[in-house]
């Protein structure tokens, strides 16, 4: 995992970014470029429109008295191996203003809405200035009763008086169009979110999504806990793809120093990541079957999924949060007998799935429910920045495991596997991609188990010191798509007189200065309104299901006191008291 900054990469970066900019090479071809705030949108135009690269994530970092750092991470793996270019712009704390990248490429819109909400940054020319996580109505002007974020006309959030359903309003005459909220409590949506769909009869003419029903402040929790404990918090971002959060976290942290990870540990990481994908995809097939009203499919697939969970439990001791990820390796080895018995179980499961899934995918009613539903063409895919199976079902061959692999074994020389794509561009394509990926993942697991059964070795290397101010990026292909971790090492610069003579005057820290997580659902949810337009109301749950939403991954919220305009987090006791109070009413 040593740094591979060669001169070819440097030369390429010099070609791409304007002259006179200060940039530093990170490890594994991550390049961090310091830009002026005015250039951000011009560079975005050049990158996304001319060069056709993807914006991985945009986020802001609060540097207290030093203002805000806005980061835009672009994925250049198309041009140079593993190249990620991160643009960083510093804004003053007083009246931070920057040109909007959202007006150049739509994929930045959610990130900018989030930054506006959390850091108070003004984006000039923002296409959608509404709140991302806070309620739209908040804060209302006490005199006019209108909230400043509500003035957008792109997506209407409230039904006009004529649009409400009238009693005995089943004739289309009485109900020309209606705004139907799907969520936050709806049987088709297990997690909290609202999708507003504007319907004419059963035909959806417009749709909008509102998130913000979960709050855990998980990025802040990781920042407070440091690298070693943070990985356990990171795993808890999502219960279904916990392995991938673990891997992405350790990849990002190992990107901060010259990490050496034993090969056996890499195999164990891959093994668990792929087992995780297997159970996640089986789970998704069940959920999708349930969403189109097929309880049998749900029951059978979830019954089969238990066997994968058993293997995972036998290997790690846990079913959901494995807790074996460590910087520089893993904490548990896989013994020979365990590898062999797991392989037997897995092969039997593979046989059963091969019997069950093809007839399911050929079921005529299932096909009629899936083909042509929730279509998303390649251009929209790129513009909205979807990732994972949703993008691959639209024939876009992106897979982080191939393009920019995490610190695990995905080298085609060591493990044979392929990226699955499909050109259906609809719900059916997403089903096929996931079913095929399931079998590819099982093949990878078998190869890993073979290796682990045959060999022995170290599973953990000692971590080294992390230099303050280093930046790192960790990527992993979670079952739902690309998972992005940005990390910046913490540390303080001490005055010279405080340090012993001859020592470097920088005090390192065991805590990162900032951690930014961009989950795949964050991107795919943003593209949801594009898929929902022009579908039938019956298709809405399955389209929402087709991106395999994970709301808990997407949401981040802070509590803001409207009177004093100060923000704070709720403590556990306060939350308990609050729930008791609300529960009683």
């Amino acid at each position, binding site marked *: 995992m040593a740094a591979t900054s060669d001169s070819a990469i440097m030369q390429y970066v010099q070609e791409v970014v304007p002259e006179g900019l200060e940039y530093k090479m990170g490890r594994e071809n991550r390049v961090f470029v310091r830009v002026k705030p005015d250039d951000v949108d011009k560079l975005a135009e050049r990158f996304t429109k001319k060069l056709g690269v993807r914006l991985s994530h945009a986020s802001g970092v609060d540097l207290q008295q030093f203002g805000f750092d806005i980061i835009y991470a672009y994925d250049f793996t198309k041009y140079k191996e593993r190249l990620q270019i991160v643009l960083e712009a510093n804004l003053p704390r007083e009246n931070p203003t920057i040109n909007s990248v959202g007006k150049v490429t739509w994929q930045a819109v959610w990130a900018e809405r989030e930054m506006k909400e959390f850091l108070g940054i003004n984006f000039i020319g923002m296409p959608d200035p509404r709140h991302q996580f806070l309620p739209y109505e908040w804060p209302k002007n006490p005199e006019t009763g209108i909230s400043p974020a509500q003035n957008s006309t792109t997506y209407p959030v409230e039904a006009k008086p004529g649009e409400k359903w009238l*009693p005995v309003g089943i004739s289309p005459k009485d109900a020309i169009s209606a705004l139907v909220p799907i969520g936050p409590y*709806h049987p088709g949506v297990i997690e909290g979110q609202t999708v507003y769909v504007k319907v004419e009869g*059963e035909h959806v003419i417009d749709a909008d999504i509102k998130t913000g029903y979960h709050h855990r402040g998980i990025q802040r929790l990781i920042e407070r806990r440091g690298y070693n404990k943070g990985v356990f918090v990171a795993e808890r971002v999502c219960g279904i793809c916990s392995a991938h959060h673990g891997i992405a976290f350790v990849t990002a942290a190992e990107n901060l120093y010259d990490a050496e990870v034993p090969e056996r540990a890499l195999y164990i990481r891959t093994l668990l990541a792929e087992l995780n994908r297997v159970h996640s995809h089986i789970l998704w097939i069940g959920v999708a079957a349930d969403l*189109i*009203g097929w*309880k049998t499919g749900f*029951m059978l697939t979830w019954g089969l999924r238990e066997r994968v969970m058993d293997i995972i439990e036998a290997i790690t001791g846990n079913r959901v949060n494995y807790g074996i990820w460590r910087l520089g390796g893993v904490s548990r080895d896989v013994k020979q007998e365990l590898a062999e018995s797991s392989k037997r179980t897995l092969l039997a499961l593979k046989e059963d799935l091969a019997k069950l899934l093809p007839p399911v995918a050929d079921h005529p009613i299932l096909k009629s*429910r899936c083909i042509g539903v929730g279509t998303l063409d390649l251009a929209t895919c790129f513009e909205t920045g979807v990732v994972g199976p949703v993008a691959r079902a639209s024939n876009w061959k992106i897979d982080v495991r191939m393009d920019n692999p995490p610190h695990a074994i995905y080298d085609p020389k060591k493990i044979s596997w392929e990226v699955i794509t499909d050109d259906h561009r609809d719900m059916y394509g997403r089903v096929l991609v996931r079913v095929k990926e399931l079998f590819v993942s099982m093949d990878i697991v078998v190869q890993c188990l073979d290796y682990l059964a045959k060999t022995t070795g170290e599973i953990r290397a000692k971590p080294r010191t992390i230099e303050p101010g280093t930046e790192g990026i960790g990527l992993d292909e979670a079952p739902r798509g690309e998972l992005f971790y940005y990390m910046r090492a913490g540390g303080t610069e001490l005055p010279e007189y405080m340090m012993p003579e001859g020592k470097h005057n920088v005090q390192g820290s065991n805590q990162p200065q900032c951690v930014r997580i961009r989950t795949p659902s964050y991107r795919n949810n943003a593209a949801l309104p594009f898929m929902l337009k022009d579908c039938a*109301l*019956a298709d809405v749950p399955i389209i929402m299901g087709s991106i395999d939403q994970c709301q808990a991954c997407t949401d981040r919220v802070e509590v803001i006191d409207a009177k004093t305009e100060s923000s704070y987090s709720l403590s556990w006791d306060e939350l308990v008291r609050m729930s008791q109070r609300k529960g009683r009413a």
Partner: protein
Amino acid sequence: MPDALFTTITAIIMIPVAFFLSIIYLFLLRKFSARFQWRVGPVISMYADLKPLLGRSRILQPLYDILKLFGKDTVVPSVARKTLFKASPYLALACAFGAIFFIPLPGVPLLSYLDDSLVIASYLLIAAVMFTILGAASSGSPWSAIGARRESEIFLVYEIGFVVALFAAAMTYGTLSIWTIATTSSLPLLLLNPFAAVLLFLVMIGKLGIKPLDIAEAETEIVGGPYTEYSGKYLGMLQLTKGFLFYDMVGLFIVLFLAPMFGTALWIPVYIISAIVVVLFLSIVHVLHPRWKIDRAMRSYGLLIAVFAILAVIMVALALSYNWVVV
């Protein structure tokens, strides 16, 4: 014509019997579907350690579910047309309940010996669904309105099939009295006119909301469909309506298509077995399919109904012209 006193007494006895049978049919549907889905379902013989807590058996689980609803609060939405909203469950239940007196059991004609009993029964069965739709449409909820709309669309399709299937039987035997149909033939109509039997089976799938056609109450799509705003006793009544409808439809199927067993009460075990077989077939359809979309269902289901209706009518014409029926 049977004795009036005998009819009165059997009709009174019939109320608990039909109630019990409808609960059993609902239980069987749940049990069969559960077994097909690798689940246990409501247990027939309770686990030994749970017996003191849960009783000996859970065969009556559908009844407990309905009874529970009668103990719950009943909420009427403020935007609903209240009279219609409250009256509809009563009327729907009354229609489905009234129809049980026109479905004979072996040796027990009830009111089915009346000259036009088939017409009365079909009207009652249609009205039960109609009132469900009306109540939903008056509730003021968008989900209910969409559910009612879907229900009425699918209703238009299966009612045509329903009427054709019933009158295929009536035409073949030249009578509108269910009891006459049940007792006069020596050959089951299932063999004589299998297309009409399949047609009535297809109608049952639509009318009872069995899986590809549970479009109206699609839980994951439109919450509860027509039942979204109903709660407490009204919901209980609608569930009961469904139970009685189940009994009516299964009974009607047997009486029309497996006829020559209604002469004496000794045939009752055969009647029960054939009922179980019909429910088994319904459960198989229930577990095998995902839900149709309404537009697709209108097309495919409508086509299916139309094809079988035409075939059934052709079979009736053949049967009449070649005198296959020996009355």
